[in-house]
């Protein structure tokens, strides 16, 4: 059908133009609102997105993006706790919220003018009134954070930044172990996250962002690390 053909062609052109803009601008946040009008009353809107950039700034922005996601999540958990939350669980989740907010604000301060923009989250898949839904999402975020830091460490060039990433990833792992034990006692190092050789799984930037973007309205890409938002 002629209309579909035109739409496909239009999307392809937008995608290519978006890629060029990402690649050219690098670390700067990209306020990308591309609107394509077809020849009938139909518009294609591509979500606003950001690219992490390249080099150490890129990796720090990658961490900053994940910490923004976590901080926003726990902030909402504590502002509207799930039904039946215990005193100790609320204390644990409040402490984790505080850690993630500090991680986020630290990266923002450290990156200064190089920081990507504040991300808009999309938690529509999470039922904040349900303990299982909240702790399940928390488990996803914490395990993802650990695998992200472990998988991106080798890309860091400044040894001070590498040590800083190490200082944070072990705290994320402490969180992950706690959340997992709250869900299933004794699952702190379950076989879904720790391989049979005793090593925590690690994920590439592309793998992590494709999962994280499911919870973000502002999509995060990493064109220098082989990841463009579909």
């Amino acid at each position, binding site marked *: 059908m002629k209309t579909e053909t035109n739409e496909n062609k239009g999307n392809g052109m937008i995608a290519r133009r978006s890629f060029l803009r990402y690649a050219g601008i690098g670390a700067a946040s990209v306020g990308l609102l591309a609107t394509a009008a077809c020849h009938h009353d139909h518009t294609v809107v591509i979500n606003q997105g950001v690219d992490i950039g390249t080099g150490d700034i890129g990796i720090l922005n990658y961490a900053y993006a994940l910490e923004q996601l976590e901080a926003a999540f726990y902030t909402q958990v504590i502002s509207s706790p799930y039904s039946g939350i215990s005193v100790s669980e609320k204390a644990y989740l409040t402490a984790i919220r505080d850690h993630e907010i500090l991680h986020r604000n630290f990266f923002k301060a450290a990156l200064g003018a190089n920081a990507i923009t504040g991300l808009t989250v999309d938690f529509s898949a999470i039922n904040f009134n349900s303990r299982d839904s909240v702790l399940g999402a928390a488990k996803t975020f914490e395990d993802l954070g650990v695998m992200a830091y472990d998988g991106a460490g080798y890309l860091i060039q400044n040894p001070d930044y590498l040590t800083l990433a190490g200082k944070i990833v072990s705290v994320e792992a402490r969180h992950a172990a706690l959340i997992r034990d709250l869900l299933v006692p004794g699952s702190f190092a379950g076989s879904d996250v720790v391989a049979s050789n*005793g090593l925590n799984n690690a994920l590439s930037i592309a793998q992590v962002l494709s999962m994280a973007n499911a919870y973000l309205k502002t999509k995060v890409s990493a064109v220098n690390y082989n990841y463009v938002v579909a």
Partner: protein
Amino acid sequence: MNVFNIIAEIEKADPEFTERISPRRAAIKNITSFGSKVAVAALPFAFATIFKKAYGTTSTASVTDVLNFALKLEYLESYFYTRGVATSGLIPGTDMNVFTQIQADENEHVAFLKSVLGAAAIPQPTFDLTAKGTFADVLTNYNTFLAVANTFEDTGVRAYKGQAANLQGNEVVLTAALSIHAVEARHASAVRQVRAAHGVNIMPWITGAASVYNDTGVPAVNANYGAGATGYPAENNVTQGGVNLTTLASAYGSTTPYNVACEAFDEPLDANTVVTLVTPFFIN
């Protein structure tokens, strides 16, 4: 694993790779002869050595030194949990699954490091789990066992973190070290949860105050949470990357509480300090 395909791939990504290896032919030859003598599992380490030479990473410790340092700590942890799990009446049945899981992971860490090091691996030392009498009842008093486990895990996290910069840029070995480091942190969290369940006032993460850097309630392990060599502050450090974390905003206002700043960042420890800390646990 086909060694020569990998080299070809590296050359595609970095045409100057072979130029950086000096002397080129000798290095390639070494891979072949080395690879024929040791297990395939050792190959990533062989590459690590070459990469280190090729790219001139400025570190004071060789990859072999770092991995043997890690192996020494893993031998100790593995032995400790193996003895703990095997000691009748020490670990309550309700907690046993936690310690069999940790024991299994530590055993795997030993096996992994030995496979990577091959013939360069240090042999298993002999141990004194009482640390020359400091923890005389470590295998008869569960609370002492838990306190030592807590300290071993937290110190393991510090030790691995302290070696990250020595492995910098080395995708294979650094990623493996970071991945073991994360598992040690999971263990630390789990052991702290067990201690909390038995009435100890402790969180899964290390907290502190301006005057408190050891939150375990065990003064004998103060040094494990204290400062190491220059550049390795105590666990209650709140300055990261030149930023005083307490000056940043939080959910409580324009500043961050001191304990939150302690908790959110774990501190590394230098190898010499770690060795000094664990030496009492070794007989040879």
